[in-house]
Each structure stands twice: as C-alpha cells, then as structure tokens.
C-alpha cells in the first residue's frame, strides 16, 4: 500500500524526483522541530505550504516549484517513515501527506464545525501521555481484577435489562384486581376516582368466581408455558447476571481496599502532623524559659554592682533559661555520654555542679571527702576535707558549696580555695573561717588533732565560735553548721537561707550570714497534728516513731539497700518550704510560722527527691513513681511510672529527668508524654543521681562513675 502511493506520486511529479538528501533537508527545514505539538491540521497544512516563503536560503525560481513539489516530496518521505518504526518522531511532527490534504476539506468546509478547545487539548496531550511510561506488567495483580469493559458491562444501566425482561415474562395476565386501590385503601388514603374499573372488577370477579368454582384454586403460574428456548435463554441470562454481580462485587472490594489504604495514609499523615504540633508546643515552652532568663539578665545588667551580682542570680535550681555553653557543645551528638569521670570505687551519693563546664563536686558512699572536678578538663582539682561521715547531700551555687553528711554537720565551702587546699595538703582538715570578718584571736589549726579541736569549738546550737585571722592558711571550708543530732540527708540553700533535713526527723532553717539556726521544724509533730488541708491519699504505713529504715525495691541489677533517710529532699523559696519524707508525704511549710500548712499524700513509699517551681511540685519516691502535683489545688496532675525506685529527679516545663534504678538515665517528655533513656556509653550499674542545666546533663551511678551527656 505505501509503495503504490509512492509510485503514483513519482508518476505525477513533472520535474522528477529530487535526490534523497535534498529531500531530507527540505523536510527538515520545512517542518517545525519535533516535539512541537501540532495544533490543527489546517495550521499544519498552511504552515508547511508557506514554509518555503519563510526560508532565507530558497532561491526565488525554486519557490514555485516547491509550492507544487513540496507536498508530493513530503508524501514520498512520509510514506517511507509512516510505517511504525519510531513512535516519537511520527507522532510529533505534523504529518503532511495526502492524508492530511484529504482531511482538510472535511475539516474546513464539509463539516462546518470549529475545532473546539477540547479537541485541541486532546491532541496536544496525546504526545505527553505517550511519554508517560507504561508500567512493566504486573500480571498477578491484573488477572485478579475485571477488565474495564467487563466492569462497564456489569454496571451499565442496561445490564439490568435482562432481569427486567425476565420479570416481564413472569407477568401473568391475571384479571384486574385493583391492587393499587386496595393498597391505598389499606393506608387510609383516598383512591383516585376510577369507578368504572371497579365495577368491572366486581362483575368480573363474580363471574369468574362462579366459573372457577369447579376448577378450584389454581396458582398463577399454572397457565404459563415458557418453552425450552426461552428457559435456556433465561438460564444463560441468569448466569450472565450472576457474573455481573461477581464483577460488581470485586469492583466494590477493590474500591474499598483503595479507600482503606488512602484512609490509612491520611491517618499516618495526621499523626505526624500532631507530633509536629507537640514539638511546637515544646519549643514554645523552651522559648518561655529563655525569655525569663533574658529578662533576668536585663535586670542584672541594668543594676550593675559586683557584690550584688551573686545574690541577684536565682539559684541554679530555679534558673530556667538556657545556660552558657561553649560553642563546641552544639556539635556533640545528643544522647551519648561524652565524658566519664571515675570517682573512687563506691557508689555516688550526691553530685552537683556550678555551671556547665564549670566545677563539679561529687561524694561517694565510703568517702567522707567530696571530690572537686574541673569539668572543662575532666580532672580532679582537689577534695573537700572536713566531714567525718559520708556526705549524703550537697549543693553548689557559683563558688559556694554546701554539704551535709552523716556526721550531722553541714559545711560550707568556698570552691575558689580548693586549689589552696590542694597545695597545702598537709592541712588535712580545714578551719572554720569567717568569710567577711577578721578577728584578732589566734588559734592554731594543726594537722592531726583538728577534728577534736573543731568539735570542741562548736556548740550544739551551731553558733559560730571560732575566729581565726585571715593569714592562717585555711582550706576551702568556710563554715560548719552543727545542730542536727543525726545524719543530714537533704539540704537546699538560696541566697542567705539554708534549709536542712536530717534523720532526726527535723528540718532546720539556717541564716548563712550569721551561721545561726533560725528555726527548727519537727516532722513528727506535724504528723501527729495534721493540718486541715490534706490531699487525698494515705500515709505509708512505715514506723515513723522509731528508727526509720525501709528496704528499697530492687534496682535493675537486683541489688537493694536499706533506705534510712527519713527526709529525702527539701527545697525552699523565700518563706515556702517543701519537704519529702519517708512516710511518703510531701509537706509544704511556711517558714514564717514553722507550720506545715499542706500535706500532699499519694506516694506509697519514701520520697527520695523533689523539686518545685511556680506551678508544680514534682516528687519521686521508692514506690517507683514520680508524681507531679499542682501547687494551687494540691492534686496530682500526672504520675509517671517506672520499673524501679526513683532516687533522683529534675524537671522543667518540658521534661522530667530521673534516675530510676536502671543503668540508663530516664527522660520523660512532658509535652509528648514519651519516655526515652540515655544509655549509650552509659553506666554499667544503676544511676543514683542526676543533675542538668540546659543541655548539659550529669549522672552519677553505683558504678562510681559520673557521666556527662549532651541533651
């Protein structure tokens, strides 16, 4: 077929066939570039007809020849390539051949139509569609699904026609019963007026009734005979209809599966968006804290005075905003312990640090002298010598450190003087030295008998007695506060107020400027005289009157201790004091009156750690839970459950970090309520104490190691 058209075209050309390469160039130059979609046939024809006029290289004497020649030459070239060899080229080039010319009259005149935009779009997008790749066949999936046409046949309205036809065949010509009228009458509605029909019915029935008496009652289908062909046809049709039903069912199944998949995908997206929302909430809380810090600094820098400097800053326990960290800290991978400090061989009992990369003080179980570390280098600078019993609690604020030990004393240390002590190491025990006053009295603080001397210098009520001149070399110990009769197990100081709790079940408030004990609060008294406001719960049934000793629930490694600290934790702010005690109660005291005005009950084990801010009190206890209480209502807002007893915690608006008897440090995200653990390069025995500032976290464990983490 193509050959014949070639032959005819060559026969018609008056000037002979131009050689092929000339033809190709004409073709190439005359037609627009491939990829340009043709708009309409008319345009294509006209474009090609006028193409010679637009060409610069054409000689004028050739133009006329081209006008006549071009179509035929193009046809010649086209017929060569119209065979389906390459798809892309033929579809995109406006084919100008006899077929095109043949079509133009139809397009232009005979049809008397205009090409609509739809048609144009359809043609234009055809090439784009072809560009869309055909997926490589999925035979297993496709075989299971009915073809589109099959679905069409099943769902088209005429699909039901066979059924309707069969129903029609089952319509029996029964004498008219007036069923419609009956049904309307049954519903109590007025029927249409069709009296004549009714008469007919009545008459007919009577007649029929009479006639049929003899034959008896017959069923409606008795008279109907279908015939074999009809019945066969009906069988086939029913078969087809059943297949159609099958097809429709499978279509619906597919649709349902599709929709389910879409819903799942959307659900997934929704959960992700909600998580993002939570993240934003967290960030907002962080920004609030940062704002607080910035405002504090504003005040601070607004009133510049060196001595006021330290008192202006809130204690590190209350400071919320971000800390000052070296820029390298940002590069640290989060959740990995990047530094480890080995402190002896016994479990860490207490730790605190002044600021990130500042000074760290740690105390261990069998060691009465806490170690002083420089966090920047990770080396031990010195030790705080003075106590005679294990230091169970300590707090560091800038360069002042307060320690409470089992010997019942509280010592204040000046950390700037730790280097001096290290140099003069023969001075084993430090003096009691006032910070600001100079006195004339000389007392020699020698080497060996200092502890005895010290004890004798100190009166039970803790008043300052010793006055040594400045020139006497002194260790870092600034002051000793004695007064408790048993081990001091919790302390907290801010500005000039220090509060301590001891195993003698009393809380004492001290004035640091004078070193005097200002108030003593007896917990036993508070227990036996409960105040009117007590939150729901019950007191743990521990023997309170005698010696307090409770076995801890086993740690993750199975070990357990005898917990004897009746006062697990204290914190104060101005005149408000909160204490957590071994009976499981968190008591709120007013230090102006010395009364516990509120008791928060809920824990079923001794409270080991607590912290409060303006809104919440968070307490952790050996009953394996951390409770968050609302200060205003006294109710529990949240309870965080762990697997082992909680021994230390710290919280801010976004998270609660706790040591819960496992090797990993537990972090609870308050906004997203998610738990996470820090364990990479972590402790090999349960963590005992944690402390963090901004993104710098320290943890001390029973493996006698302190690990530093980047949050």
């Amino acid at each position, binding site marked *: 077929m193509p050959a014949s058209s070639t032959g005819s075209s060559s026969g*018609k050309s008056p000037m002979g066939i131009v050689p092929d390469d000339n033809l190709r160039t004409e073709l190439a130059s005359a037609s627009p570039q491939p990829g340009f979609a043709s708009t309409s046939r008319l345009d294509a024809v006209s474009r090609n007809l006028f193409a010679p006029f637009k060409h610069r290289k054409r000689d004028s004497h050739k133009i006329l020849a081209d006008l006549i020649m071009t179509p035929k030459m193009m046809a010649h070239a086209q017929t060569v390539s119209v065979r389906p060899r390459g798809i892309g080229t033929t579809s995109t080039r406006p084919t100008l051949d006899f077929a095109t010319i043949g079509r133009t009259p139809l397009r232009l005149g005979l049809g008397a139509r205009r090409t609509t935009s739809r048609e144009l779009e359809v043609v234009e997008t*055809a090439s784009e569609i072809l560009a869309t790749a055909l997926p490589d066949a999925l035979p297993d999936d496709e075989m299971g699904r009915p073809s589109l046409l099959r679905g069409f046949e099943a769902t088209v309205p*005429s699909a039901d026609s066979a059924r309707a036809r069969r129903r029609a065949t089952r319509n029996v010509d029964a004498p008219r019963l007036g069923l419609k009228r009956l049904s309307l009458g049954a519903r109590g509605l007025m029927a249409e007026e069709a009296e004549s029909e009714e008469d007919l019915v009545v008459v007919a029935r009577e007649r029929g009734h009479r006639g049929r008496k003899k034959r008896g009652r017959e069923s409606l289908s008795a008279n109907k005979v279908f015939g074999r062909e009809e019945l066969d046809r009906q069988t086939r049709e029913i078969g087809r209809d059943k297949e159609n039903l099958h097809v429709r069912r499978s279509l619906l199944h597919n649709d349902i599966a599709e929709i389910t998949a879409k819903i799942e995908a959307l659900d997934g997206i929704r959960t992700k968006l909600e998580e993002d929302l939570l993240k934003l909430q967290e960030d907002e809380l962080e920004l609030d804290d940062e704002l607080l810090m910035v405002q504090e600094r504003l005040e601070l820098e607004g009133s510049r005075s060196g001595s006021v400097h330290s008192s202006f800053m809130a204690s590190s326990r209350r400071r919320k905003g971000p800390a000052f960290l070296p820029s390298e800290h940002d590069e640290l991978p989060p959740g990995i312990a990047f530094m480890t400090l080995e402190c002896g061989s016994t479990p860490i009992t207490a730790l605190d640090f002044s600021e990130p990369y500042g000074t760290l003080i740690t105390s261990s179980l069998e060691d009465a002298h806490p170690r002083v570390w420089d966090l920047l280098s990770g080396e031990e600078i010195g030790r705080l010598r003075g106590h005679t019993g294990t230091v169970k609690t300590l707090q560091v604020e800038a360069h002042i450190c307060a320690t409470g030990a089992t010997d019942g004393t509280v010592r204040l240390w000046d950390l700037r003087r730790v280097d001096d002590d290290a140099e003069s190491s023969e001075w084993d025990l430090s003096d009691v030295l006032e910070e600001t006053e100079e006195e004339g009295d000389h007392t020699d603080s020698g080497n060996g008998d200092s502890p005895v001397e010290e004890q004798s210098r100190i009166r039970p009520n803790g008043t300052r007695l010793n006055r040594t001149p400045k020139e006497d070399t002194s260790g870092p110990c600034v002051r000793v506060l004695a007064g408790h009769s048993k081990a001091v197990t919790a302390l907290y100081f801010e500005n000039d107020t220090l509060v301590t709790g001891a195993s003698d079940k009393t809380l004492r408030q001290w004035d640091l400027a004078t070193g005097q004990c200002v108030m003593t609060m007896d917990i036993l008294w508070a227990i036996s005289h409960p105040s009117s406001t007590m939150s729901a719960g019950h007191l743990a049934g521990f023997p309170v009157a005698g010696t307090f000793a409770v076995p801890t629930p086993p740690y993750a490694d199975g070990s357990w201790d005898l917990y004897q600290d009746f006062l697990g934790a204290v914190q104060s702010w101005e005149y408000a004091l909160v204490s957590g005690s071994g009976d499981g109660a968190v008591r709120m005291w007013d230090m102006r009156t010395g009364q516990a005005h509120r008791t928060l009950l809920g824990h079923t084990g001794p409270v080991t750690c607590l912290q409060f801010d303006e809104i919440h009190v968070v307490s952790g206890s050996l009953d394996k839970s951390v409770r968050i209480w609302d200060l205003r209502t006294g109710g529990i807002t949240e309870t965080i459950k762990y697997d082992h007893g909680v021994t230390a915690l710290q919280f801010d608006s976004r998270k609660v970090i706790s040591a819960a008897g496992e090797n990993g440090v537990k972090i609870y995200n308050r906004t997203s309520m998610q738990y996470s653990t820090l364990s990479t390069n972590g402790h090999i025995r349960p963590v005992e104490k944690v402390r963090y500032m901004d993104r710098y976290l320290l943890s001390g464990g029973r493996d006698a190691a302190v690990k530093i983490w980047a949050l």
Partner: protein
Amino acid sequence: MHTDMSKTAEVPYAADAEISLSFDELQVLRTQYEKEVAQSHVTTQTKFNYAWGLVKSPIREHQAEGVQLLADLYRSEPTRRRECLYYLALGHYKMGNLAEAKSFNSRLLEREPTNLQALSLDALIDNAVKREGYIGMAIAGGAAALGTLLLAGLIRRASRK
C-alpha cells in the same frame, strides 16, 4: 465459573465503539459520574463507564470529552494503562486523529503483539489513512490540474499581448 468468556472479551473490537448508547443511558452515566465528582471520589469504573459512553456517541464533542477522560484515567491509574492505551487509540481513531491513534496502538502492540483487537484496530487505522490519502491525492491532482490550466491561460494571454 465463567460460562461464556467469548462474549466478554477484555477489550472490545472497534465495531463496538460505533454502537452508541441511547441518550438516556448516557445521561444516567453522566449523572453517576457527576455525583461522584461532587463527592470528590470518582471510582475508576464510573469514570470509564462515562468515558466509554461518550466515545461511543457520534457527536464529536462527546468523543473529545471521552478521550480526555480516558487520558485522565491513563495518568492516574498506572495499573489500567494497558487497557487505556487501547481505548485511547480507539477514541482517537473515531475522532479522526489517525496519527495519535496510530501511535497509541503501536505502543500497545509493542507490549502485546498478539492482541487481536489491537491488531484489528491497527488494520482499520491503516485503511483509514490510505483512504484519506486517496482523497488527498485526488484533491492534489485536481489542484494541480487547475493550477496548470490557470498557468496556461496566463501564458497564453501574455503571449497574445
């Protein structure tokens, strides 16, 4: 399970496309489609039903719309592309866009050289192209004859003067 598979071929022969649906049937399909559009979830089957009904109709506008819908289907349902190729070829053939029809059909034949319907459509398209080619030749011939006549008249007039 299926008793008579010959009646329900996977894709219809081109002759089936010439049989158009009644107006009412097409209307039903249209309302079904528009209802689903309003619900903003159009099932493939409904879209195909409507598109196929449109393509079968003799009105060119309908055919164009049907082809448009089929093109949408092609884009959105990768699993149905094989069938859509055939229907697109059929639609374009009916509309007279023989080049597109040819290219779609060739695409299909690349994949399935033994597809009976595709082969028959291929033959139909070739015939149509040939037919139009003859018409074109006739017109071109007539135009050439007219042109030479005019030219001869002009030359004669010029030579007379």
